[in-house]
Each structure stands twice: as C-alpha cells, then as structure tokens.
C-alpha cells in the first residue's frame, strides 16, 4: 500500500525543486505524469495528434503557473485540471462540422406518453459473448458519435469526475444546462448501445 505521508512528502520535495528551477525536476514532472495526461487528452479529443499537442500545451502552461501552485492539492489533480482546460480550449476553437442531431438519438414517445419503442432489458449473453476489448471499443465508438456539446459533458461529468458546478464553470453554461445535457448524452448513448445489447425478439 502506498504510504500517503511519504507521497505528500515526495510531492512537496518535487514542488520545491520545480520552484527552484531544477531542470531534472521538470523532466521528472513530464515523465511521471505524462502518460496520465495523455490519457485524459485522448478521452476528450478524439485524435491522437491533437492529444499530444494538448499535452505539450498543458505542460507549458503548468511550467508557467508553477509559482502560483500553492501545493494545496495533489500535483496530479492540478495537472488534470490544466490538461482538461487546454483540451476544452482546443475543442472550442475548432470549426464545428455538421453533426448528428441529439434529437435523433433521444427516445420517442406516443401521444399518450408511453415509450414509442418500449425498452427491454439487455441480455447478459450479449456481454458474455463480447471480448472485453471489443466491448470497450463498441462503447468508445458510440461515445464518439455523440454530438460534441453533449459528449463533452458526459466525459467531464461521468468520466473525469467533475461535479455539476465545476463542469458548468468550465463550459460556461448553467448547472441546469449541465444536467440536461448530461441526461440527454446518457440517453443518446443508451440508444446507440441498445442496438448492440437489446434482447433479440424470438
């Protein structure tokens, strides 16, 4: 089990060295946390090249901001926030291409309020028959199909673990809008996954 006190001590020492401008400390920061930051960038952006650029930008931001980092949170938490913000800026600056409308992926209802296509449970066999890697790939591809504004909320809330308020601040939308988009993103994802996992009608 990692020793928390030793970890904190470790980080405090690294921070001291970073503030003193120690080149080896900077290299350590890149090597120690780089893969994790790359993983986050890849989740948020959808292409590997962009993800690498974002990690580079994020590290340069971090280097500039080192003197403002008070050490109140873990270094990994601080870097996580920086790379998420860098990715968000990149997403904002991209020209929006025409996307599948979220409406097409939301459940439809009859005039009496019943589900137009009543949901049925997903079979365990569908999951058992799929290799783990195939399952992950299927879900990732479905997430990638979500319209961007919804996909990003799902990623920030359900995967990156930011709460409603923080997500709203990062995206400059109200907490209420965050909740609505999250719910719609989840519903849309459910619709896409339902195609794979729905119980086959005998």
């Amino acid at each position: 089990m990692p020793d928390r006190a030793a970890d904190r001590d470790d980080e405090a020492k690294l921070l001291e060295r970073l503030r003193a401008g120690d080149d080896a400390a900077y290299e350590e920061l890149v090597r120690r946390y780089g893969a994790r930051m790359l993983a986050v960038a890849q989740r948020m952006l959808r292409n590997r090249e962009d993800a690498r650029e974002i990690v580079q930008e994020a590290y340069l931001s971090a280097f500039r901001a080192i003197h403002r980092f008070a050490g109140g949170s873990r270094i990994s938490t601080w870097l996580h926030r920086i790379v998420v913000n860098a990715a968000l800026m990149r997403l904002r600056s991209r020209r929006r291409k025409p996307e599948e409308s979220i409406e097409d992926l939301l459940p439809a209802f009859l005039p009496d309020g019943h589900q137009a296509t009543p949901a049925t449970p997903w079979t365990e066999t569908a999951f058992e028959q799929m290799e783990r890697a195939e399952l992950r790939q299927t879900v990732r591809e479905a997430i990638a199909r979500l319209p961007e504004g919804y996909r990003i909320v799902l990623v920030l809330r359900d995967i990156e673990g930011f709460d409603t308020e923080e997500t709203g601040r990062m995206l400059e939308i109200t907490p209420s809008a965050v909740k609505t988009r999250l719910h719609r993103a989840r519903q849309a994802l459910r619709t896409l996954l339902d195609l794979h996992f729905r119980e086959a009608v005998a």
Partner: protein
Amino acid sequence: MTCRELIEFLIDYDSGELDGDVRAEFERHLGTCPPCLAYLDTYRRTVQLGREALADGDGAALPEMPEELVRAILAARAQR
C-alpha cells in the same frame, strides 16, 4: 405520471435528488411499468459502461508517453 415524464426526469431520480412524494410516484410507476424499469436499468448500465470504456487502469493500460513528446516539451521550456 407518464413514461415520458418519468424518463425526462430520470436523472434526478437516479441521483437521489427527488424527495418524499415525488420519489414515491417514480417508484410506483417503475413498479408497474416494465419498459420504464428496463429503461432505468439500461440507463444505469450505460453510465457504467461509459466509465469502464474510457477509464484508465483495470485492463486498460495508460498510453505510451512517446519519448519525442517528452523531449519536445522539455525543449519548448528551454526555449523561453
């Protein structure tokens, strides 16, 4: 409560934000409507699958941090 209404506010039910009477209404509906119960189950499963598909660890290795990227970052720092 119609299925449409239930599904529209499902996120609040699922996150435990509904209180007393409203919550009871949801549960009543879910108790008598198999398609809505199936919707809730598959909705929850969807959230779980999304987390597992994108999470690090547990079988999903972290990506390789390319050496060129490490060097590029350190070089960019040195240039300023």
